[in-house]
């Protein structure tokens, strides 16, 4: 191949890859980067209240705000002409110290009614200003970058002196929720593996219409909306639902099992929803294993169990790894299934993300939880990548 042609191939390759790269950048890297930045940035106060930030530096944090601070705050509040910026300030301050919403709206309302040259007395507008905790809250939120969200996501906070400490379990219980999220995801992966592996074996060994039916029964649920499947489980798992009624009718149980609003129910429903992600990778690997390996092992004297453990299982380990990883990674982000089927102690991290993002518009907290979920996912991915590259290296 001549040199110009090589260049042409290279440019053609770049053009082929270009759209994919642009797409990846826009829908993958950019959003993740935004989330990362969001989880450590805290620009609302430093942007909107510059004079106050300067004045706070000369203030003793144990006393009421100085006159200079009050005037600076009044000047800053008057200078804000975009209500959305003021909204950010208030949301941030109220998140630091409950009460700021009514305090700022009352204060800025009163300031607007005041003549421009009138003297400022915030305490007269609202006596709460006399309490240093409100000024301390402003002082604590001045820095444009912060570790507050990430710390809060794992139940930690800085005290007034800046030392990191743990927050009591009656105030914040995010660590438990993280552990629970991973525990549920691991249980679901295991259940999916125990059901999915034999099923994939059955699929791989069957022929003709049987295989068609088996594949269809994995794929059809996959094409049904997650919400529909969760709602169906909701109906099935109820105390007077099909499962409990059937078991009672058969006589296996006297009282309903209490499957709805329980961990068992969540694991059952999530395993059903995620099963295809386990079955399909294993199935595709099983198909590549030559069928004569079984008889070969038998001819060497291995019983079926030994043949399975020493021949088929190692050869299908890649399928198991990718299936488990897919299920686990999807499971840690689950929201709607635990919300509908689970009880209060079955909620996963996503429910907290949903509250902070949608319920209270606290994007910093929501981003911090997202980052903390991303880290184990990335670690797992790296581990998976190592396993697969080693296996591939051996086979080639």
């Amino acid at each position, binding site marked *: 191949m001549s040199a110009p042609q090589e260049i042409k191939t290279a440019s053609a390759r770049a053009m082929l890859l270009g759209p994919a790269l642009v797409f990846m950048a826009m829908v993958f890297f950019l959003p993740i980067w935004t989330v990362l930045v969001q989880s450590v940035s805290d620009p609302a106060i430093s942007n909107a209240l510059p004079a106050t930030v300067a004045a706070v530096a000369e203030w003793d944090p144990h006393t009421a705000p100085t006159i200079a601070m009050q005037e600076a705050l009044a000047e800053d509040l008057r200078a804000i002409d975009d209500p959305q910026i003021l909204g950010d300030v208030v949301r941030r301050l109220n998140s630091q110290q409950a009460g*700021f*919403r009514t305090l700022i*709206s009352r204060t800025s309302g009163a300031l607007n009614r005041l003549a421009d040259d009138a003297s400022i007395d915030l305490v007269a507008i609202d006596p709460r200003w006399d309490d240093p905790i409100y000024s301390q809250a402003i002082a604590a939120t001045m820095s444009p970058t912060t570790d507050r969200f990430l710390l809060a996501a794992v139940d930690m906070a800085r005290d007034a002196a800046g030392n990191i400490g743990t927050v009591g379990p009656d105030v914040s219980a995010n660590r438990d929720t993280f552990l629970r999220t991973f525990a549920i995801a691991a249980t679901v992966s295991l259940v999916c593996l125990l059901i999915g592996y034999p099923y994939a074996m059955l699929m791989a060994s069957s022929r003709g219409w049987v295989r068609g039916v088996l594949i269809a029964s994995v794929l059809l649920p996959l094409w049904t909306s997650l919400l529909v499947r969760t709602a169906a489980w909701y109906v099935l798992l109820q105390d007077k639902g099909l499962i409990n009624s059937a078991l009672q009718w058969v006589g296996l149980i006297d009282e309903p099992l209490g499957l709805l609003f329980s961990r068992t129910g969540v694991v059952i429903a999530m395993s059903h929803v995620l099963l295809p992600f386990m079955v399909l990778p294993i199935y595709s690997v099983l198909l590549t294993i030559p069928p004569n390996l079984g008889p070969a092992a038998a001819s060497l004297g291995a019983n079926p169990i030994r043949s399975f453990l020493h021949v088929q299982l190692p050869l299908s380990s890649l399928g198991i790894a990718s299936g488990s990883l897919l299920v686990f990674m999807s499971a840690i982000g689950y929201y709607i299934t635990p919300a509908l089927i689970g009880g209060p102690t079955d909620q996963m991290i996503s429910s*907290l993300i949903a509250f902070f*993002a*949608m319920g*209270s*518009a*606290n994007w910093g907290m929501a981003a911090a939880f997202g980052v903390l979920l991303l880290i184990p996912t990335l670690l797992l991915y790296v581990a998976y990548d190592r396993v697969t590259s080693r296996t591939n290296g051996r086979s080639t």
Partner: protein
Amino acid sequence: MGNLDGKGKQMSNRLTLTIAGVVGLSTLLAPTMTMARDLTVVSWGGNYQDAQREIFFKPFAETSGMPVLDEAWDGGIGVIQSKVRAGNPNWDVVQVEAEELALGCFDGLYETIDWSRVADQNDFLPPAISECGVGAIVWSTAIAYDSAVLAEGPNSWADFWDTAKFPGKRALRKGPKYTLEFALMADGVPPHDVYQVLSTPPGVDRAFAKLDELKDSLVWWEAGAQPLQLLASGEVVMTAAYNGRITGINRSEGRNFKVVWPGSILAVDSWVILKDAENKEAALDFISFASKPENLAKLPEFIAYGLPSISASDMVPAEYQLDLPTYPDNLTEALPLDVDFWIDNSESLTQRFNAWLNQ
């Protein structure tokens, strides 16, 4: 020739790629270039929205000639904020709760309402008037139970907490709002003192301590249609529920669910127009249509919510009056929601509530 062929192939490849690129880009940009979107009205779903569709959405579409697209949501100021911030929100009119009205109005997430085009303020209840919103309903969160299951039902939040007298599970709306108020009333705090007690740290502790007593018997719901399902399936013996939906299901499905008015909490929902919404003119027309007393007065027949307009309330037939939260007898021991308390304390109390749920 081979070389020429190759060139020709590359040319056509390049052309295909360019076309693919243009098509791809235009799909990416499409949302900003599409034709005008229909007026989109968002409300709370379930049988409430079914009623609104019959008496507001469809008739408005017919009289104005503008198609109305209706969607449902479950609340949350973050949802509104992200839509408005992203620019060109895909909703026009949204029915919001009182806190979302207060928060969003302060943050400039809503258009200012030109009341002269909507309704006479003198005819509206004071909490239903805002510069950013027009009151839509007065609704109540109250205890509901199935009288087919419990002949002798609960009469108060103390009864709701009494698992000896009424065995079985109970359901509450997930979150600190309402839950803490109900717990304090169950603990003997009179309705008019509830927020005073709740404003102090010992009051909050007291509410959580009371919740501890009932924790094992509680299930939590998030969407307004869930408590009806929980009651209907017998999963719970009583639940907090939106009063209108209770009456709604009684009428539509022949149930005999009862609403317990003492200790119920009243709030006003309002219509708002999202800032810079594409159809804000049509949106105002819609709100004006939905606020006409003769149109409002049709609502209680379908769903028993109180009306923000005094003259509309007077037009409601007597048979439906009894079920409304605004009916005088139902108001005597009811408590109006303290919006200011919740916009200040929602985040910190939700965090504590989530921690409590986890324990």
